């Protein structure tokens, strides 16, 4: 049997399904529902077995077209930085507010992706976010929480 990444992913899915199935059996149902033909744990149990079945087949059966990914050609660094910026953005958006965090997120993402045209970077971050906020908040009446703009009196 040839071990490749697809099979490793399938094996991980098999383990995940086993964990899911175990957790499904642990779901607490009402006493009167325990022996009912269908209760809150029935469907998840079927899903757990289905996951084990399909991933198990994938692990066992031979792979007709092996997919080879050239990891050397992949841009892990930039992708990682982008994910990190998105996490920081997610962590600060509620405390700082939509306008400032979103603008900084866009500006820093442009920068880390290699952009150096500062004027364009600025225009496509701060004024762009302001215009988008106006569209959502001002025209479409979608509430946007922004403690920063509230503290400086721009937003009510």
């Amino acid at each position, binding site marked *: 049997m040839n071990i490749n*990444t*697809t099979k490793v*992913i*399938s094996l991980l899915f098999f383990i995940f*399904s086993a964990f*899911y199935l175990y*957790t*499904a059996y642990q*779901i607490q*149902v*009402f006493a009167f529902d325990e022996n*009912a*033909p*269908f209760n*809150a*744990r*029935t*469907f*998840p149990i079927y*899903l757990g077995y*289905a*996951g084990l079945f*399909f*991933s198990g*087949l*994938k692990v066992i*059966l031979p792979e*007709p077209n092996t*997919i080879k*990914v050239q990891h050397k*050609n*992949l*841009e*892990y660094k930039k*992708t990682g930085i*982008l*994910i990190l910026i*998105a*996490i920081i*953005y*997610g*962590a600060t*958006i*509620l405390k700082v507010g*939509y306008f400032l965090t*979103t603008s900084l*997120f*866009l500006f820093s*993402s*442009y920068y880390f*992706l*290699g*952009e150096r045209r500062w004027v364009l970077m600025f225009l*496509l971050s701060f004024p762009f976010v302001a215009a*988008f906020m106006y569209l*959502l908040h001002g025209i*479409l009446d*979608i*509430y946007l*929480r922004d403690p920063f703009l509230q503290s400086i009196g721009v937003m009510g």
Partner: protein
Amino acid sequence: MIEGILIGLTTALTFQNILMVMVGCFFGTIIGMLPGLGPMTAIALMIPITYGFDPATGLILMAGVYYGAVFGGSTSSILLNAPGVPGTVATSFDGYPMAQQGKAGKALAIAAWSSFAGGTLSAIYLLFMAPSLSKVSLSFRSPDYFALMILGLTAIAAFSSKGQFLKAMMMVVLGLMLASVGQDSLSDITRFTFNNMNLTDGISFVLVVMATFAMSEALTIILKKNDPTSAAKQVSLTELGSIKINKEERTKMYKTIPRSSIIGFLIGVLPGAGATIASFLAYGMERNIVNDEEKEKFGKGSVNGLSAPETANNAACSGSFVPMLTLGIPGSGTTAVMLGALLGFGVQPGPRLYMTNPEIFWSIIMSMYIGMVILLILNLPLIPYIARILAVPKNYLIPLILFFSITGIYVMSFNNFDIYLMIGIAVVATFLRLYDFPMPPLILAFVLGGLMEENLRRSLLLSNGSWEFLWDRTLTLCILLTTILIVVWHFYKTIIKK
């Protein structure tokens, strides 16, 4: 029906809704032209904007994006041999050779007129078929719905998996597993929340769509060092030439369009099949029907060879609305996203939509027609200019996609946890995409998860825990046999291929 058409026209022809169709078609064309970013990403990115609209307007906007994306995909197919969406691969077989012969404008015009005619004819089929099917589907019982969902999930796995059926089925199971997180709909018992309050209401559909499509698409582009905007830059530089179609070409199209539209529509109605299969089938059928002289031209710039797949893929788009509007079961990943959005609006699609929300039902059908007209009048002459807008560097495009994705979740929940969860799912989806695990089956399964459990619950309770409900009714049995047929056919095809 006349009353319904009038209701639909009244809703669709308001200034706001016409504007939405225009914006949708325009935006969809832009995204559709970018290879890799298909209609599902385009629609997912539109979801936050639709929060401010009523359901009919929101859906009209998304339908416009859908057609626009398919049209945009044809453009890059014809001009660059780089299909923006899988449904337009067959378009490139004759569209690209025609463009190479210096007839790019003509090829685009043939594609646009064929799309228009295919879309218009299928909108007419939908007009007649949907209400009748809605009435028929009222007789559907829970076992039939359950079987139909199994059919839909199996079909999308078989058709969208490029020979990787097991991978697609794993994605189906993963989608159903994600849908099972949160409170059980009947007993309110929490499942798979691990005492995290943020998961009590389950995982949001918008979050899953944004993560698996928009966000992971953006991360994949960076990871693989792709540049989808380079195609658009080339389109903006291409000399189109005349867009006039002569009498001989028109005569050929008159024969091709009706038969391809029927094929496209019928394939579109089937759960899971969609525009890609429709366009290939129409292309193959056309090649078999035409005379030997015309057959020789196939692959070298044949008018019939270009017109057939273009008609069929647009007809299939309209056809895929049939199961969604009449049964509440989406037939494709794209309509699954729309169904999720509709559920978000508090509208339950299905046989009763026709009676309870006629303005939504009819306005979608009417807006399809308006969308076709707009695509023809506005987008065809504007293609080089739209392409110029697209020629923004990916350094700007990717952060903007991430921004739209995160904003979509932020305005919905104002919760950090959802943003982290979305990033987590997007990272896993990006990794899975690298190894060709398809995402549309996951989305369809996620949307259908709740409904599937509900119908299985009812069926099992009514049959006292026995699985006999699967063959008690002829309809249920027929649907299940079709499912088995699809699986057997798929494995047979794979074995023959080997």
